């Protein structure tokens, strides 16, 4: 198909760019993960697979488990909060739909750090909220503060795909469902949810994968037990100057995330061919 050949040419700039500036750098990370450092802290290439042994040291297992746990909690909360909001905007938003979506996205563009520090100011022991309540509740430096920070940071990535999926739905389906099932809950479970499951999956992936590797929320909002794998990686690159170990951690993390991404893509592909 000659239009196909014509269009295939368009792939070249993007392919070249991504290979040279994304795939190759990841390859270098892989190479460094087998290296070591000299006395002055410079990275040396070589063959030191013990870096990977270190990654799987049982002392780090809780860190990985915690990261996955926090990320799952974040996804769950994002779904619980995001779905009703996306539903309301998509179905009841009317003329204001687009403005509402814009308002969801807007806070996301205030610098992440500035927003997080604003939360610390608000929820600090001597901050606005405690002041107003006349209380001394410890909000910050808890696991829930970290999850809250993660949810706040990634919620938009859940709402947008959900909104897109809901917006695409034919309202007649919901009406038919209501006639068939009677209660809103059953309509939701048997009609709306199945039709928006791709949006749910997309949002889940877009939230879960980056959340696992996040380091800022735990650093700023966490307590002593909030060490996540992103912090561990950051520690290796910044404080410990152990780039090879950091690279090994990174490689393992990405491999782990890649598995989930492939599973998601398979499911999306199946859905696309089924439609």
């Amino acid at each position, binding site marked *: 198909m*000659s*239009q196909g*050949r*014509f269009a*295939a040419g*368009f*792939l070249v700039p*993007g*392919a070249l*760019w*991504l*290979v040279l*500036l*994304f795939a190759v*750098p990841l390859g*270098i*990370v892989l190479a*460094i993960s087998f290296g070591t450092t000299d006395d002055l802290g410079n990275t040396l290439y070589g063959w030191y697979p013990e870096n990977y042994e270190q990654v799987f040291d049982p002392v780090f297992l809780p860190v990985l488990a915690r990261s996955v746990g926090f990320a799952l909690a974040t996804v769950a909360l994002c779904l619980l909060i995001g779905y009703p909001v996306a*539903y*309301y*905007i*998509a*179905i009841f938003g009317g003329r204001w*739909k*687009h403005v509402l979506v*814009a*308002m*969801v*996205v*807007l*806070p996301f*563009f*205030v*610098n992440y*750090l*500035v*927003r997080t520090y*604003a*939360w610390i*100011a*608000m929820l600090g022991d001597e*901050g606005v909220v405690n002041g107003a309540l006349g209380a001394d509740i410890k909000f910050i430096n808890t696991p829930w503060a970290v999850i809250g920070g993660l949810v706040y940071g990634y*919620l938009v990535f859940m709402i947008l795909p959900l909104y897109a999926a809901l*917006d695409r739905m034919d309202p007649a389906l*919901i*009406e038919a469902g*209501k006639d068939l099932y009677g209660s809103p809950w059953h309509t939701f479970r048997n009609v709306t949810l199945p039709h928006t499951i791709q949006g749910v999956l997309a949002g889940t992936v*877009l939230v879960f*994968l*980056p959340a696992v590797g*996040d380091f800022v929320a735990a650093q700023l909002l966490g307590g002593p037990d909030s060490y996540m794998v992103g912090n561990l990686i950051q520690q290796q*690159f910044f404080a410990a100057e152990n780039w090879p170990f*950091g*690279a090994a951690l*990174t490689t393992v*993390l*990405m491999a782990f*995330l*890649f598995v989930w991404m492939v599973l998601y*893509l398979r499911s999306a592909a199946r859905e696309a061919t089924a439609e």
Partner: protein
Amino acid sequence: MKPPKDFDRPRFLKAFTALFFVFLFAPIVLVVLFSFNSSKSLQNFDGFSLRWYEQFFGSESLRDSLAASVQIALVTMVVATIIGTLLAYGLVRSRTRWSGGLNVLMLVPLVTPEIVAGVSALLVFTQVGLQLSLTTIILGHITFSISYVTVVVRARLAALGLDVEEAAMDLGATRLDTFRLITLPAVWPAILASGLLVFALSFDDFVMSFFTTGESPQPLPVRIWSAIRFGVTPTINAIGTFMLAVSVLTIGLAIALPRLLGRRESGVGVLFGREAA
């Protein structure tokens, strides 16, 4: 989409959504409010003042950082939208041996933890001996932006279908002309919307910039990260408010421009690949 006819008035959902927006904007309100505070305090509002904005715009080094951030975001926007659009067209309108792998490769940056992307970019630049500068930041930003453009434009292209293009070619138009005169104008809202999204993301980016920045000027978010450890000064809140204003403008354009250019749907609708209603 209009709400189904016999739905109850969604009182609960409405209240829930309202509460959601309150929480979403609470810290933003704080930031904006205290950027106009006449004193340094972050607890008490002592009167209205523009002094922190004076400090921000009066500082040559902060102004340079602002200019750097804008420059980076603009170049990133232009290059990423071009490459991303071409990639989207190629992925949708052709089927090669490489398409599957390329599709995956294109999606990976979207889910790569930022620290990984930043470190690997720094590594490749230092290995190749490229001096860190605004250019390296731009290269890094473009790399993670292409995927956003491709995903958005591709959804739009897929929804458009081949019919009009095939009709044009039946009428004797060359493939290049068809692309230029038929396809491109039809996906233009998607290109614009994703371009503005890329601009906003680049303007606020910290992690990638941090790794790939050279000597001065450093982009604004990097400056904020270094300074914020020493306490949030009201100047930082002023910077944050200013960035918010820029983003409001950007998104406002994203919504309004396609309408102003005569399309019937706004950029947001385009962002989600729906056909013109």
